[in-house]
């Protein structure tokens, strides 16, 4: 297919996928809307739709529609942890390692960074960097467990990392309860981070500040570029991808397969851990997560939507964050119950990620292009023949 046709198809497909899922979503909203008359229900559904689609960026009310920088900041800031887990999953899945440890990884990274941020004073700036790096490094080390077990003993990394998530969570809870909790507080939380470790906001406006759009976002984008270069322009990343495609081939080619598999998970762990550190140091004053945060699963979704390509991760993360914000807006302004949102979200990305969706249309485009090519070739050879003769 030509590049142009391919692009048109992608756009049409995405638009239709979203349209269908919106219809399904609106149907659900319509059914559950507690208006008394059908007309009222319609109105509420329309309101919900408006909030879902443009609410994430615009304030919609009686006074009309106005752009809200704060909401954009919210969306961008929500992308910070998911870009990191998305990248983490990209690297590991590229090596065909279904390591689900980003979930525990981001929690552990957050915790370790928090401990560094609270107990080890350092000069401002350096402190944040060290906290995040140490957080990432610890998770990288922990990821050695599934990685080495996989390489040496052929233990399923998926199962091992899944179990490891729970072990990490409980150990953190234990440590928090017994050693790190600030007992003067009602919930289990640490003492506040030292100021030197905080990650500053990009925009200095008190309202937008509360969105916590920190320099972490810029770091996340830099991480995208570095990971992209790493995966597509460096020999390590190349080997990771080749191993993911065909392990036997890689071994035969002389790659140190076991080592690279370990490396991929260590890097995945580092990214998740660093993401955790950046998230807590940027967004919170204390560490208070008491269960797995869910960013790991979102990361998997993002990596799959991005086709394991780091460069597409920010796009996928934006899509997820926008969707999330739209759903929040529905909950806030359109009275749509918050739990419906998980259904709406699931439906939307199910369709969005459906590969075969509109396959017939795609095939017809493919055929058309191929036929055009053949015709063009035939014409060319005829011309050539005429010229020769």
């Amino acid at each position: 297919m030509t590049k142009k046709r391919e692009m048109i198809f992608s756009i049409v497909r995405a638009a239709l996928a979203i349209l269908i899922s919106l219809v399904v979503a609106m149907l659900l909203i319509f059914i559950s809307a507690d208006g008394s008359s059908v007309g009222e229900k319609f109105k509420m559904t329309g309101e919900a739709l408006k909030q879902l689609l443009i609410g994430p960026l615009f304030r919609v009310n009686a006074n009309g529609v106005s752009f809200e920088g704060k909401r954009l900041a919210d969306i961008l800031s929500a992308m910070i942890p998911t870009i990191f887990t998305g990248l983490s999953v990209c690297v590991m899945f590229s090596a065909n390692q279904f390591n689900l440890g980003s979930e525990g990884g981001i929690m552990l990274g957050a915790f370790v960074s928090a401990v560094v941020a609270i107990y080890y004073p350092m000069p401002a700036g350096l402190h944040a960097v060290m906290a995040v790096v140490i957080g990432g490094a610890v998770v990288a080390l922990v990821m050695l467990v599934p990685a080495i077990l996989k390489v040496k003993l052929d233990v399923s990394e998926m199962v091992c990392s899944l179990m490891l998530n729970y072990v990490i969570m409980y150990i953190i809870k234990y440590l928090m309860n017994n050693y790190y909790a600030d007992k003067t507080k009602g919930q289990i939380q640490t003492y506040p981070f030292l100021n030197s470790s905080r990650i500053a906001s990009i925009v200095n406006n008190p309202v937008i500040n509360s969105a916590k759009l920190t320099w972490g976002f810029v770091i996340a984008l830099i991480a995208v570029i570095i990971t992209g270069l790493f995966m597509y322009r460096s020999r390590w990343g190349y080997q990771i991808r080749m191993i993911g495609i065909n392990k036997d081939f890689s071994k035969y080619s002389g790659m140190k397969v076991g080592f690279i598999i370990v490396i991929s998970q260590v890097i995945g762990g580092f990214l998740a851990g660093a993401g955790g550190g950046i998230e807590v140091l940027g967004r919170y004053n204390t560490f208070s997560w008491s269960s797995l945060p869910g960013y790991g699963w979102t990361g998997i979704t993002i990596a799959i939507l991005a086709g394991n390509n780091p460069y597409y991760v920010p796009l996928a993360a934006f899509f997820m964050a926008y969707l999330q914000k739209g759903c929040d807006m529905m909950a806030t302004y359109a009275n749509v119950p918050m739990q419906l949102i998980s259904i709406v979200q699931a439906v939307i990305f199910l369709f969005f990620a459906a590969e075969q969706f509109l396959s017939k249309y795609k095939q017809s485009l493919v055929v058309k292009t191929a036929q055009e090519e053949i015709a063009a070739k035939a014409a060319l050879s005829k011309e050539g023949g005429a010229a020769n003769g």
Partner: protein
Amino acid sequence: MAEEYVVQMKKIEKVYSNGVAANQGVDFNLKLGEIHALMGENGAGKSTLMKMLFGMEQPTSGEIVINGEPTVLSSPSVAISKGIGMVHQHFMLVPSLSVAENMVLGMAPRKGIFIDKAKAIEITKENAEKYNLHVDPEMRVADIPVGMKQKVEILKALIRGAKILILDEPTAVLTAQETEELFRELTHLKQQGYTIVFISHKLNEIKEITDRITIMRNGRSMGVYETKDVTKEEISRLMVGRDVVLNVQKDEAKPGETILSVRDLEYLNEWNKKMLDKVSFDVRKGEILGIAGVEGNGQKELVDMLFGFARPMAGTATVEGKPIIAKGQQEIRELGVSLIPEDRMLYGIAGNATIEENFISDRCNAKNLNKGPLFDMKAIHNLSEKLVEDYKVLCKSPEQQVGMLSGGNIQKVVVAREFSNNPKLILANQPTRGIDVGATEFIRKKLVELSRSGIAVLLVSADLAEVMELSDSLIVMHNGKIVAYFDDTKKLSDEEMGEYMLGLKEMSPEEIRRVCHD
């Protein structure tokens, strides 16, 4: 006129979802009771055409008429119900299941709600008897030799009542004897009124067994011929579009010092069968040492051993004096060893990666391809463009996915990589298996060229003609042992070789010892 054809495929077009137009207006007919050859270069669209006849792929346009009735073959089960059976180019067997289970898959005999295993075995035995294709019903498919696998495939089709049998390169993996046996059976089937489509790249076979030939090139039919009316040379020209040299010209070898030295290798497989029995030989600079033998006599194990995929129980192997046993592939490659693997899809390529990425897999750490922490993309592009050109890889661009190339072009990618990394020793295991005459010619020429430039080549091939023609000297393996050594292949006859290969004759240890040049 329509009546005399059991199958008519009219103006068949097939565009795959990746945009490859594999068939472009192909017409193909089968007469009742004939053996019909389908020939063409790798990627000409033979398998594609047959897959559509078997309902595995759907034509983009065109019509299929079976026994005079226009038919839509929407799935293999429809094709099976129309009496069509297919033996695929690559095995379609479930390795962990037994022969009998594979045989009855999808139509298992039952006792109550359970499978009647005894009945399945009985059915298998009966049919094996009936068609004279001997298989062991209770063995796991993973454990049986390739020859038997091929028989299982053919029986599978016959058991399902196929009257039209499509055989996609069935002889690619068979020994001469097995091929003979198969041909006898095919002739037998033909006499019983079966119609057979026979795909092969081996011209001798085509001439020997088929009645008519359809030749394909570039997704189009180049016409239908009575086999007896066309010569091998004409067929080749029709397929390739130019004259093909069927015999490789080569100069006298001038062997230099020993590169690979193997001494007393012994190996037991998982089932404690002795696969290598005190194997010793040397390969010298500038010579091609061939290993002949019926497949399954230790050749695969030997190559595995030399490339670090398995460890011997005893014995040594050195390259220029440095041991390679129990070394990793990377270290072995660093010593200057290249391997053309037997199974190109499994080891030779990463199918979803680009051609370019497949070219650099063995040298991704090389200094000249890296600039600091990153690849030197320009150097890589240059390398791959050069290789595509030198090795005549038919592709749109080096950025194309390797997996979408046809078999022959995939093999060229492998060969290009393995030949271009300055090897001292090339292990070539079945380098031309299942690829067309054009590509075969090209690869053989390259191999000779390299050896004459001073590279040691160890050639393993099940194709007797190939080993005899290419090798400067030759050993024969039987039951894991070297049973003969010939320092000159010119005077050899096929019959003599056959006797050694089947273990009917064996040279004395002293005579064999001559292959060790120390």
